[in-house]
């Protein structure tokens, strides 16, 4: 039986924390990809071609209903074997693509709910004032649709952050991978894995508090029918 050793703890800590760049980096790039791809889903599902929209809808539904780890494995191990379009990715890129695309399927729903929350009358007023399609979106609809989605997006960012250790399974060297190999070398898993948990807690919890505060703020603004949201151009 091994007992808790502060010596091991302080020995492991500086080693493990070197992986934080990769863990945070993967979170950020995956999330950026999810934000962009979420928008693309929305566009692809709103074309004038009903059959096409329907196919895209089911592709998105399929990706959303499969576990991210399966998608990570698929992109890393199986994709290179797909004829014609197959190619191999580095572990980091494979994880980024899998997590980014997986989360984009949720984010696209968030966008949709934001856009649907904008009153139909706003579109009509913009039409009556002869706004171009582009100005309708960028000056009228999106400035009203985006603020209420920010807390939801924040929540997905935190969930994504907690899914990032899945990338360890294909060899992305984040904090979890480092902790595991530290454990394998020293036969002490207790301290390194505790460090990993603490690091996640330190990063997630304040973010969760921030999101909750944002949520409260938005609710206060959007409960009222006519909101006062300051959006700078």
């Amino acid at each position, binding site marked *: 039986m091994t007992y808790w050793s502060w010596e091991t703890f302080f020995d492991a800590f500086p080693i493990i924390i070197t992986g934080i760049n990769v863990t945070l980096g993967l979170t950020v790039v995956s999330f950026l990809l999810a934000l962009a791809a979420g928008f693309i889903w929305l566009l692809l599902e709103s074309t004038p071609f009903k059959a096409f929209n329907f196919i895209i809808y089911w592709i998105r539904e399929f990706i959303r209903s499969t576990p991210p780890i399966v998608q990570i494995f698929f992109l890393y191990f199986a994709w290179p074997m797909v004829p014609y379009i197959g190619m191999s990715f580095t572990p980091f890129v494979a994880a980024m693509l899998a997590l980014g695309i997986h989360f984009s399927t949720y984010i696209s729903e968030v966008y949709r709910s934001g856009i649907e929350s904008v009153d139909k*009358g706003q579109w009509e007023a913009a*039409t009556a004032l002869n706004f*171009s399609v582009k100005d309708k979106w960028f000056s009228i609809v999106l400035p*009203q649709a985006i603020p209420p989605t920010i807390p939801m997006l924040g929540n997905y960012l935190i969930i994504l952050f907690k899914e990032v250790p899945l990338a360890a399974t294909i060899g992305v060297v984040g904090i979890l991978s480092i902790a595991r190999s530290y454990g394998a070398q020293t036969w002490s898993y207790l301290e390194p894995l505790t460090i990993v948990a603490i690091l996640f807690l330190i990063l997630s919890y304040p973010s969760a508090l921030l999101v909750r505060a944002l949520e409260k703020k938005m609710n206060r603004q959007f409960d009222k029918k006519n909101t006062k949201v300051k959006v700078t151009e």
Partner: protein
Amino acid sequence: MMEPIVQYKNVHKSFGDTHVLKGINLDINPGEKIAIIGPSGSGKTTIIRLLMTLEEPTDGDIYVAGKNLWKIEKNGKKMPANERHLASVRKDIGMVFQHFNLFPHKTILDNCAMPLIKVKKMKKSEAREMSKQMLDRVGLGDKYDAYPSNLSGGQKQRVAMARALVMRPKIMLFDEVTSALDPELVGEVLEVIRDLAENASMAMVLVTHEMDFALEIADRVLFLDEGIIAESGTADEVINKSDNPRLQNFLKRFRA
């Protein structure tokens, strides 16, 4: 004889199985003030929404200043109008809505100035100056920097009118603009419309339940019933000289 600025030619509109407009023929002359009255569900609002391009007619044609609103000719064939064509016709039309539809994320000054900047490509300073003048005219000179949520319903509706007016439309559409207001706020909005009716050269079409007001300012009153224009004439002709029983019935409810 003046060339009409708007012409409806046998215009039909259905929503699913509901046949709302059943052959509307209507000429609107430049500067003419028209009031449309009629029971709810008779299609009053739909008539002006078609002109504002918020709904597309199922059949028939609408001409604005001689141009077919919903169709373009391409190689001798009639095609559905594209957004560019709609925009070129729509620029002469303005509309005020029942629920104001102000932009909640903009100050009232920006509500007025933004369309000038974005749509008319006006310089910012010029747009703001024009908007201020228009807001002064509707009595909101002290509220430039307020947000719509801080205004009363009557004030919101006056901003909405200023926002539409500053675009200098040739035709202004009013869609039950006082229906969503508390009774004590109706007067201030009607006052602005009366001022326009007396002093502005644009054509105006009012869909309204304010019967007495409509009769007072309108050059012509249309009684719409079950999707057709059942009566048309001066207020006096429609109210006092018509023997249409459904119109009498409708009016009786307002006199009661």
